[in-house]
């Protein structure tokens, strides 16, 4: 690892000041991607701004029909939360499928979303459940958040504070994990929300996206059989040693069917 200055600010304002004063400063959330990246010397921040001492960024709150999760809340807390389990079980299930137990104990929802790894699970939850990302300056709709490979709508030094999930009528997440890393080769979140059916796909493309063909088919008939015969275009999908674009396209439909079946129970 290259050398850096370490900061652990006690407030958002203090964190913002450190970020503003240092061009090459980077935020440290749970560190489950950041630290391995730095160990490989693929990142060389001048300063690390550790948000773990900012208590307001952590916790799960129910507010009417929405659940708000603080950016620094670890995956294990979301997976184990009785509130999330009862209000949005699909979200608790998804959080419990991320990485391994130790990653879930340190990794955070804010860190995962800011990083926007193409194979991360949380982007599918945020997009599929039509969540809102609350930063220190604004609120960003999930549909506007994911831009490209490791690229989001976040501006420089913008800090995610919380993510607000509206309670869906029903939802489920199905994932085909890479057996070694547990990252999603393909993961699909299917949700019936008050605004209609949403199908969000992770692992398949440069960043999470909605599969409108699947949404249209499910809007007519919310059943796994409604997706029989539907094919997904492999054109823009990822091609790597784990899976070809064609295989990923196939998995999108299979995972969507599994999610629909699970959501229908």
């Amino acid at each position, binding site marked *: *690892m*290259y*050398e*850096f*200055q*370490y900061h*652990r600010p006690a407030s958002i304002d203090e964190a913002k000041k450190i970020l503003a004063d240092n061009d090459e400063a980077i935020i440290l959330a749970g*560190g*489950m991607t950041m*630290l*391995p990246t*730095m*160990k490989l010397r693929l990142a060389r921040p001048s300063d*690390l701004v*550790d948000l*773990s001492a900012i208590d307001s960024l952590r916790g799960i709150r129910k507010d009417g029909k929405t659940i708000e999760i603080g950016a620094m809340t670890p995956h*294990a807390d979301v997976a*184990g939360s009785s509130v999330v389990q009862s209000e949005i079980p699909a979200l608790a299930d998804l959080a419990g499928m991320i*990485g*391994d*137990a*130790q*990653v879930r*104990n*340190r990794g955070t929802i804010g860190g995962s979303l800011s990083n926007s790894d193409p194979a991360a699970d949380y982007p599918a939850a945020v997009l599929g459940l039509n969540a809102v990302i609350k930063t220190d300056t604004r609120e960003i709709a999930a549909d506007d958040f994911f831009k490209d490979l490791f690229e989001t709508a976040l501006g420089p030094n913008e800090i995610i504070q919380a993510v607000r999930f509206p309670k869906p009528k029903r939802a489920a997440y199905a994932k085909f994990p890479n057996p*070694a*890393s*547990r990252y999603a080769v393909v993961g699909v979140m299917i949700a019936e929300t008050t605004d209609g059916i949403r199908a969000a796909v992770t692992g398949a493309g440069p960043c999470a996206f909605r599969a409108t063909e699947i949404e249209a088919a499910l809007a007519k008939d919310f059943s796994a059989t409604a997706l029989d015969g539907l094919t997904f275009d492999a054109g823009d999908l990822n091609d790597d040693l784990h899976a070809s674009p064609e295989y990923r396209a196939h998995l999108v439909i299979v995972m969507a069917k599994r999610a629909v079946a699970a959501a229908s129970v």
Partner: protein
Amino acid sequence: MSITVSFTLNGEPVSAEVDNHTLLVEMIRDQLGRTGTHIGCDTSQCGACVIHVDGRSVKSCTMLAVQAEGADVGTIEGVALNGKLHPMQEAFREYHGLQCGFCTPGMIMSALDLVQQNPDPSEQEIRQWLVGNLCRCTGYQNIVRAVRAGAQAMRS
């Protein structure tokens, strides 16, 4: 730049001078001399370095020492009580849940975190929980048996 990091290790206060980029596992092994925590892959995958920080299992190769400031840290050295093996350690011995033994400290620290959340884990739950702990000898069958037996012994 060096900085003093202090935390509680197995119930005792410890501190050491480290660099900002010193990993927690390096501080524990090299500065504090507790070498029971192993470094297997150093890429967050194998789980040989699993320890407890504030009661949760974490991979100490993927945490900076400075992040542990003020924390309650537990390593394999703190598991046995008064010279007597912990029931989970005893179960690993009884069921031969180890071959070369390199992954064992991480397996046990991970298993203890599982049992504190789920006192009676099924075989499938144990296997799912241990996805982040690799055994290069592939001795998983007996590790899973040992964790089940250890959990049972801890309940009784």
